[in-house]
């Protein structure tokens, strides 16, 4: 009740001199407006930067099989086969910090289309989710292959821009058949250009296909380096008969070996399917450590590793990228904070200045209020409330101004902006604080006036 009356009194006093109130709050309005606009634009840019860095794979986690060791001799990473496609599915299902995960089967082999051939740097057998992991969902042409293609082991693939150039001479490759290790794959889509990665290797030199197709139809076993001419050596018609062969009968086989085509057409049932790698993406950069922890726990459980025994897998994250990312955004936030503080202090001094003038100008009013029974504390509260109301009103206007100008910037300049509730909260808190701090001295001065002197003041 009392505070409502004090507020109303302050409000009336401000309304009595609306022009001066507006000019006074202009400092705060501009200060807060600048802060909000900068925060929104800055946050938008920072999110845009984060997204582009994230598309470089900042959130990615790479899971490799661990090392085999025998009698104290370790064979290095990837030397045992421990990861399964089911691991990838389980990671996706059971780790809340992981947004996307896909298994990867790698081969390196020759690709043929018509009279041209090429050995792509990367041939990945994976699932459609790989595109989500790499943030690569916009295709230049066509459609990605589907989960159903993965289940069926369909011979379909997506190819990168480098392959379009090398094999198709910039013609549209859609629905064309290319041969990977003599297995025909239909091109269903073309990936958009991604360029080189940070280490300079070409990311467009890539073929993506269902992992089942790569695993069972192209490479008999994982990580086997196959090329078609080497594979063809088993074909007796191409063997060179030379006397250098000391024991010619050693190559004689009693049963004809299945040709690669036969082998590809009749995949052998495999009890244990392994993949070469699993890629996963954390939901955000901040959740990477949590994701690593969850994946470790899950895989240890799935692989039945006892406590105390070493992991049979290795998880890598892109620490370099992540730390660059968080460094950038921290710097940006600090910069914005500095600008914010300076403009708000300037605005606050303006408020104090006007409140001091106001106290002098309204000395008689203060005397009158005291004569009709206002105590010093009432006067203090009234002037303080006035300052705070001015500051809060300025803050509110400033929020609108800042919000409006950031929208304008988005519309006119097409800069990314993002509304920032923290900035709005901080602006309100800071304008309140400025009102109290810079309103206190004038209010205290007013409350110390002697009613007799004040009434007589001309």
């Amino acid at each position, binding site marked *: 009740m009392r505070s409502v009356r004090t507020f109303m009194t302050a409000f009336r006093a401000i309304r009595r001199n609306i022009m001066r109130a507006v000019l006074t709050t202009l400092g705060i309005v501009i200060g807060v407006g600048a802060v909000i606009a900068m925060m929104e634009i800055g946050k938008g840019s920072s999110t845009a930067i984060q997204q582009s860095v994230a598309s470089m794979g900042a959130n990615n986690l790479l899971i490799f099989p661990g090392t085999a060791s025998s009698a104290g001799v370790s064979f290095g990473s990837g030397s045992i086969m421990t990861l399964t496609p089911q691991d990838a599915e389980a990671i996706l299902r059971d780790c809340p910090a992981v947004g996307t995960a896909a298994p990867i089967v790698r081969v390196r082999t020759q690709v043929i289309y018509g009279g041209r051939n090429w050995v792509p740097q990367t041939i990945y057998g994976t699932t459609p989710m790989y595109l989500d992991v790499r943030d690569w969902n916009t295709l230049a042409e066509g459609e990605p292959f589907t989960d159903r293609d993965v289940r069926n082991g369909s011979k379909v693939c997506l190819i990168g821009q480098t392959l379009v150039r090398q094999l198709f001479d910039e013609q549209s490759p859609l629905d064309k058949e290319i041969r990977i290790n003599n297995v025909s794959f239909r091109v269903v889509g073309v990936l958009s250009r991604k360029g080189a990665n940070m280490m300079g290797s070409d990311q467009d030199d890539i073929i993506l296909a269902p992992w089942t197709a790569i695993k069972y139809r192209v490479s008999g076993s994982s990580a086997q380096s196959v090329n078609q001419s080497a594979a063809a050596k088993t074909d007796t018609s191409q063997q060179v008969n030379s006397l250098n062969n000391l024991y010619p009968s050693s190559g004689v086989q009693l049963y004809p070996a299945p040709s690669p085509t036969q082998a590809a057409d009749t995949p052998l049932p495999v009890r244990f399917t392994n993949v070469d790698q699993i890629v996963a993406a954390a939901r955000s950069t901040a959740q990477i450590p949590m994701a690593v922890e969850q994946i470790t726990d899950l895989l240890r459980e799935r692989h039945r590793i006892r406590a105390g025994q070493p992991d049979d897998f290795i998880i890598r994250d892109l620490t370099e990228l992540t730390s660059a990312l968080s460094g950038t955004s921290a710097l940006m936030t600090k910069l914005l904070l500095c600008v914010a503080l300076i403009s708000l202090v300037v605005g606050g001094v303006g408020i104090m200045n006007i409140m001091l003038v106001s106290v002098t100008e309204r000395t008689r009013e203060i005397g009158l209020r*005291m004569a*009709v029974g206002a105590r010093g504390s009432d006067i203090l509260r009234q002037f303080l409330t006035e300052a705070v109301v001015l500051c809060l009103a300025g803050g509110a206007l400033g929020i609108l101004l800042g919000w409006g100008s950031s929208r304008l910037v988005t519309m006119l300049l097409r800069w990314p902006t993002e509304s920032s509730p923290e900035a709005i909260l901080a602006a309100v808190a800071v304008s309140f604080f400025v009102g109290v701090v810079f309103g206190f001295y004038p209010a205290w001065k007013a409350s110390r006036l002697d009613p007799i002197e004040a009434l007589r003041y001309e």
Partner: protein
Amino acid sequence: MQLIELKDVYKTYHLGEMDVPVLKGVSLEVARGELVALMGASGSGKSTLMNILGCLDRPTSGEYWLDDQLVSGLPRNELAHIRNQKIGFVFQSFNLLPRTSALENVMMPMTYNARGISDRESRRRAIALLERVGLGDRIHHHPSQLSGGQQQRVAIARALINQPPLLFADEPTGNLDSHTSEEVLKMFQRLNAEEGITIILVTHDAEVAEHAGRTIRIRDGLIESGAFAHEGSMAGAGGAI
């Protein structure tokens, strides 16, 4: 018991090294329902006495009983509360808040009323008072839109909003022409007669003082005459004992 009892009050101002005695042992009494004029030339201590009587200032020594309460030793905040509850002020220069409607001016003292009267009630009371002083049709006018006499009537309504038993009028007609002065003084007389409000008119004008039931004259910090009702020049208009 009288409404006001002043017993041997001294007031001394300290100007640097010098002590300036302004009131030199003032004793007086005002009964409930009296209309009293306080007269004196400038420099006589009239204003100082009024400040003490109005609880704006404290005496250096002596006792001041207002409404059976010893107020001479009270701290500032207590005095503020007493001013709010028991005393209404009317000033020479009206002292209305500029750019504020007559209604809001009248309601202003209610802001500091600790008794928690609702806004609607205080609004109702303010409108009734404005009607009473003949400004019922001007409650939303700003002071700049009112004549001097009307402004002073707004000020009177403001002084009465907390229903004080005591009203101080400090040169209430000083800024008014003779016709309006007469109106305002008539209003004081009517308030005194009809409501029984004790009114103290502070003036240096003998014509104004004639409207009062009794005149207290002060000179050089001492009461010259009229300090007590029984030795007053006239019988109190409001029936003072």
